[in-house]
């Protein structure tokens, strides 16, 4: 089964205000979409609707394949060493220590494996969240501002990870107001500027 993501006439109302309406999008294996828009336009809400965390007031979301979401919250136990915290999610995703080690290596934080999560800097934590996504091996990635707080080298690692994921037939949906190079990605501007 190849992964697919289809949004039809999707609309979201938050606090009595329509954030976005009538979003249509069809993604197949290897596709990527960059969701852009000003602060408060509803980029995060769109990703949360796609992830099934928020109800869609209009339209439908259909997805085939396993979802993974990297949001604002790390969801890594602060008192645990990074590798152990990641291993928790890797186990639930059906992986193990090998997947965690590969993901840590890919994000360039293998040397932090034994450091408790609470000691990590903002950028390191962001990379740890991306490592969680990598280790999970999901088909559809939903990344919310993945490049926030990353230095240039880390952003290149992020771009390489997304490229490898797409090359393997995955789908990436990235909400960002920073440039993240995704060759051939669809741009989806939402909010007042659209």
């Amino acid at each position, binding site marked *: 089964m190849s992964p697919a993501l289809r949004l039809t006439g999707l609309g979201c109302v938050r606090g009595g205000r329509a954030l976005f309406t009538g979003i249509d999008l069809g993604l197949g294996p290897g596709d990527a979409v960059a969701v852009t828009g000003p602060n408060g336009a509803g980029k995060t809400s769109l990703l949360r609707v796609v*992830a*099934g*965390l*928020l109800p869609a007031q209009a339209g439908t979301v259909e997805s085939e394949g*396993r*979802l*993974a*979401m990297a*949001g*604002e*919250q*790390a*969801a*890594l*136990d*602060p*008192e645990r060493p990074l590798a152990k915290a990641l291993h*928790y*999610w890797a*186990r*639930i*995703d059906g992986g193990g220590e090998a997947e965690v080690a590969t993901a840590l290596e890919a994000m360039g934080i293998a040397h932090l494996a034994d450091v408790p999560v609470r000691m990590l800097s903002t950028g390191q934590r962001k990379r740890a969240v991306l490592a969680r996504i990598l280790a999970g091996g999901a088909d559809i990635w*939903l990344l919310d501002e993945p490049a926030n707080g990353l230095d240039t080298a880390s952003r290149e690692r992020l771009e390489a990870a997304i490229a490898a994921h797409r090359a393997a037939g995955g789908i990436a949906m990235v909400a960002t107001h920073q440039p993240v190079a995704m060759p051939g990605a669809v741009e989806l501007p939402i909010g007042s500027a659209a």
Partner: protein
Amino acid sequence: MSALLDIAWRDLRRAIGGGAFWLPLVFFLLVATLFPFAIGPDPQLLTRVGGGALWTAALLAALLPVDRLVAPDVEAGVLDQYAVRGISEEAVAAAKIGAHWLAFGPPLMLAALPASALLALDGHALLRLEAGLALGTPGLAALALTVSALVSGQRGGSALAGLLLLPLAVPMLIFGAGALTGPERGGLYLLGAASLLLVAIAPFAAGAAIRAGRG
């Protein structure tokens, strides 16, 4: 299924490692220690009221970990991550209830041994107390988790938690304390029924509360 075991194991590990595990125990033993000071050392009087005092202490002890059961996981995005993986909120709540009971029920039953000695309970009352705690603590754990899920998004939620939890726990207090004396076992049966009802409802109520609290 293995994901639910992982979830329960993580909760249990965090409860024991994070100190939330000791608080109800210390509180329970503290009440048992203070009570004889307050009402005097008369063994007959202590025997008569001690069991009821221990049940009240158990109820209040169940309230102590409420603010650590669900709210930290909501804030850290852990519950969102479960949902993205397609694990239902009800299943997560059930796993969390199991973990919370393991960290709360058996330790409380152990603490009831020294506590009953402090309050001069006889063997029959101790046996009834232990049986009652074995039946009642799953219900208390389920109730604590439901209330915890309900108030997880509220500021000052722990104050509200007491007002929500204690009235719902009153039947367990009545049946539990009522079963301590006398030869008949009706109180224990009713306690078991009340506890079972709470355990049956709690995953659905807590699951709905987690979903409703998602913003």
